[in-house]
C-alpha cells in the first residue's frame, strides 16, 4: 500500500473563486440551458471571458453526456477548458427549482465551474469542499429562498468551505460493492461471477476486514494448471475434463483455494493519485479503499479515468 507524504497545505477557500457579483438569484421559472447561459454571460461581463458560446457548448455537451446533479437539489455543471488561465465559479439559485434530469428532483442551487484543462483535480476538490452542503438535505432549498447575492455569499462564507489540499481516495470511490465472506464456497463464488457479470470480488472475514480477493482468472488457473498448457495439442481436455473436478467439489471447496492476498488497496485518506500507483503496481483494474482493514469502497479503472480525465 502506498504511503506518501501529504502535499503542502494551501487552505484555499471555495469563496476565493467567486464573489457576490457572480451570484444570480432566480425567483422565476427558468430552464437548465437558460440558467447555464445566463451564468456564463454574467461571468463574461464580470471577468471579461470572451468564448461564451464555445464554453456553453462544452458545458451542455458534458451535461448531456452525464448529468452533474450531485445530490439534494444541487448541480455542478462544469467543463475543462483549454484557454482558461484560472478557474471561475458562478452561482445561481432557483426558488422554483430547475429540472436538470427527468428522473431526479428539481435543482435549487447551481454552481457553474469553469476549470483550466491542466488542473484535473480542481473539480473534485470543489466537490469535496461542498461535502457538508451535499450531506444537508435542506441546504439547497434554504439557499434558494435567500433574496440577495450577499446573503448567499454569507452562507458560503459561514460554511467555512475550504478546498482540500488534494483529492483523496475516498472522494472518488464507490461505496456500493459486492463482497463475499471467507467461509463461502466455490459454488457461491462462481454463482456471483455469473450473476453479477464481474470478474473480481473482494472477500471479507468475520470481522468485516478485507482478507483478499477472488478472481475468475484464478478459478481458471485452478482448472487449467500451467503444466496442462505446455501441450500445444489440447485434444485431451477438449471436453472440459479439467473442470469436472471443480464441478464435482465446488460445494465442498472453500474460496480460500483461489483467494489472492496480493491486491491493490489504499487507505481512505491517501491521495487519489496513489490509487493509480497501486493499480499500476499490481497490474490491477480495481483498487480497494480501506479504513484500517475495513473495506469502505472500490475504485475501478474506468471510474478513476472518468474522475480524472472527464468529470
Amino acid at each position: 500500500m502506498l504511503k506518501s507524504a501529504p502535499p503542502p497545505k494551501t487552505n484555499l477557500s471555495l469563496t476565493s473563486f467567486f464573489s457576490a457579483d457572480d451570484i444570480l438569484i432566480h425567483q422565476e421559472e427558468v430552464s437548465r440551458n437558460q440558467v447555464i447561459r445566463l451564468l456564463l454571460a454574467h461571468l463574461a461581463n464580470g471577468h471579461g471571458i470572451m468564448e461564451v458560446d464555445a464554453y456553453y457548448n462544452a458545458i451542455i455537451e458534458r451535461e448531456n453526456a452525464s448529468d452533474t446533479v450531485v445530490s439534494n437539489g444541487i448541480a455542478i455543471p462544469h467543463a475543462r477548458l483549454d484557454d482558461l488561465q484560472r478557474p471561475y465559479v458562478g452561482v445561481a439559485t432557483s426558488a422554483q427549482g430547475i429540472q436538470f434530469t427527468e428522473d431526479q428532483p428539481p435543482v435549487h442551487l447551481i454552481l457553474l465551474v469553469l476549470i483550466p484543462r491542466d488542473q484535473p483535480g480542481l473539480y473534485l476538490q470543489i466537490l469535496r469542499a461542498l461535502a457538508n452542503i451535499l450531506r444537508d438535505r435542506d441546504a439547497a432549498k434554504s439557499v434558494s429562498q435567500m433574496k440577495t447575492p450577499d446573503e448567499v455569499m454569507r452562507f458560503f462564507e459561514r460554511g467555512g468551505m475550504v478546498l482540500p489540499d488534494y483529492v483523496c481516495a475516498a472522494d472518488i470511490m464507490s461505496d456500493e460493492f459486492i463482497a463475499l465472506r471467507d467461509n463461502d464456497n466455490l459454488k457461491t463464488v462462481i454463482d456471483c461471477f455469473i450473476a453479477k457479470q464481474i470478474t473480481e470480488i473482494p472477500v471479507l472475514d468475520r470481522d468485516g476486514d478485507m482478507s483478499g480477493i477472488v478472481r475468475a482468472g484464478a478459478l481458471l488457473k485452478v482448472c487449467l494448471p500451467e503444466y496442462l498448457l505446455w501441450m500445444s495439442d489440447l485434444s485431451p481436455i477438449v471436453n472440459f475434463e479439467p473442470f469436472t473436478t471443480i464441478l464435482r467439489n465446488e460445494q465442498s471447496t472453500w474460496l480460500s483455494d483461489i483467494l489472492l492476498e496480493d491486491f491493490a488497496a489504499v487507505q481512505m485518506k491517501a491521495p487519489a493519485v496513489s490509487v493509480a500507483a497501486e493499480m499500476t503496481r499490481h497490474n490491477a483494474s480495481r483498487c480497494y479503499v480501506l479504513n484500517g482493514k475495513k473495506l469502505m469502497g472500490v475504485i475501478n479503472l474506468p471510474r478513476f479515468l472518468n474522475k480524472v480525465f472527464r468529470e
Partner: protein
Amino acid sequence: MYSEPVVKTSPLHALGKLGFMAGITALMGWSAYHFGLAPHALSVVAVCTFVAVICTTLFFWTHRVAVAFLGVAVLIGSRAMTLQGLLRATELDIILFLIGMMVIVGALKDLGFLTWIIQTIINKKRMTGTTFTVILCALSALLSSVIGEISSIVVVLALVFQVCDTLKVRATPFVLIAVLCTNIGSAATMLGNPVGIFIGNKAGFTFSQFLIGAMPVALVALAVTIIVVLLWYRKSIAEMSLKIEEHRKLRQGLGPLIRIPHRRGFFVLTVTVLIIAFHHQIENILGLTGAENTNAFLIITPLIIAGLLMIYRPQRARYYIEHEVEWWTLLFFMLLFAVAGGLQEQGVTRSLADKLAEITTGGPHALVPFVIGITSVGSAFVDNIVFVAAFKPVIQSLMEHSADYSVLWWALLFGACFGGNITVVGSTANIVALGLLEKRGHAHIAFLEWLKIGLVIGALTGVIAWGMLNVLEMPRPVGYPPGAQAVPPPPHATTPVPLPAK
C-alpha cells in the same frame, strides 16, 4: 524459457564491488606472474581477463554476458588470443549438442510427455508426505539426468506448486528438496548438466563409460540425500501427510484428473537416449574413429532428433528454436569457453598442470579431494561451468604426465554438480527454481536457509564422491586403457602460440 532476474544495486555499492573485483583481478594477475604461471605480459592479460569474467558472474551476475563479450575483445585486441584460437575454444560441438537437447525437451513438453509425468504422480492413490518426497527426489534426479537440470527443475516445480497450492502447505522445503536432487541427478549422465557433456566430450568418455562411472556415485549420493531431507524436513512432510489425509476425507484429489497421451513423447525420448547410449558402437560402424571424431555421433544425435521433430511439427519449429533454446546461457558458455581458451593458448594452464604434477605427492588420487573441494566451493558461488572450463586444459595437460590423472575428470564432475547445492547461486537450476518460487508469489528462500541444508548435502555428497573415487575403478577415456602410461595427445589439445619476448 526463464527470465533473467535483474538485481538493482546502488551506485556506491556497485563501485565498491567494482573496486574489489579490480583488486582481485590485479592480485591474481600478479600472483600468476610471480609464481611463473604467466611469465609474459600477454599471459597475464589472459589470466586477468579470465578472473574478471569469473568475478563478474559472482558480483554482477546480470552483466556476465556483456563482460564475457568484452573479455573476448580484450584477448583478441591484445593479441593474447588469435581469432582461430577463439573459434576453436568456443566448443561449438557442446553448444550444438545443448541446442539439440533443448529443442527435444521443448517438443516433449509440446507432445504432452512432461504433463503426463506430473499427471501420473498427481493421480497416484494412497499418497503420503513421505511417498511424495521420495517420488519427488527420484523424479528430480531421473529427469535431470535425462532431459537436463534446467528443464527438469521447471517440470518438477510445476508438480511441487500444484501439490502445495492444492494442499495449502509451504512450498519452500519441497522446492529445496527438488533442487538438491536435481543437481545430484544431473551428475549421473552426460545429458544431465552442461558440465557433464563438456567433461565427457573433452575427456573422451563414451556415454556408457560416463554412465558406468557417474551413475553409482550419483545413486549413493541421492540415497543419502533422501535420508537427510526426510529427517531435515520431517515437520513439513508430516504436515503434508496430514493435509493429504484431510483432502482424501473430502474426496478431493491433488489436481484435475485427465488422461494425457504420452506414447509419442515417450518414443521420442527413448529413441534419443538409446541412440546416445550406443553412439560409440554407431561411430565405429560409420568409421567415425580417431581423435578428431571423438563422440561425433553423440553430438549429432540431438541434432538429428531435433531436426526430425521440426520436420514432424513444422508449425512449431520456429517456436522451439526461438523459445525453447536458452540462447543467453549458451552464448555465455561459448564466450566463457573462449576466455578460458585464452589461458590455454598462452600456456598458463599447462604451466599450472606442470606445477601441480611437480608438487603433488601421493599420485593423482591425492589431487582428488583438492579438485572436489575447490570445484565445490567455487561452484557454490560461481557458475560451475566456469571452473570446469578452467580445469579442462589443466587436466588435459596432466593426462600427458600420466593417464591415472583421468580420475580428476570425475572429481571435477562431482565437485561441480554436487557443489552447486551449497548456495542459492550454485547452479542454474537453483536460480531458475528461486525465480519460479518468487514469480508464483510463494516465498523467497533466504541465503542462510539454503546454505544450512546445502552445506550439509554438499559436504556429504562431496565426501561420498571422494570415497567412491578412491574405492572404485573409474572408467578411463577412450585411448587410455588401465595401466597405460604412454599417452597419446588428448583430443583438441592446442599448441601454445610463440610468446613475445618479455
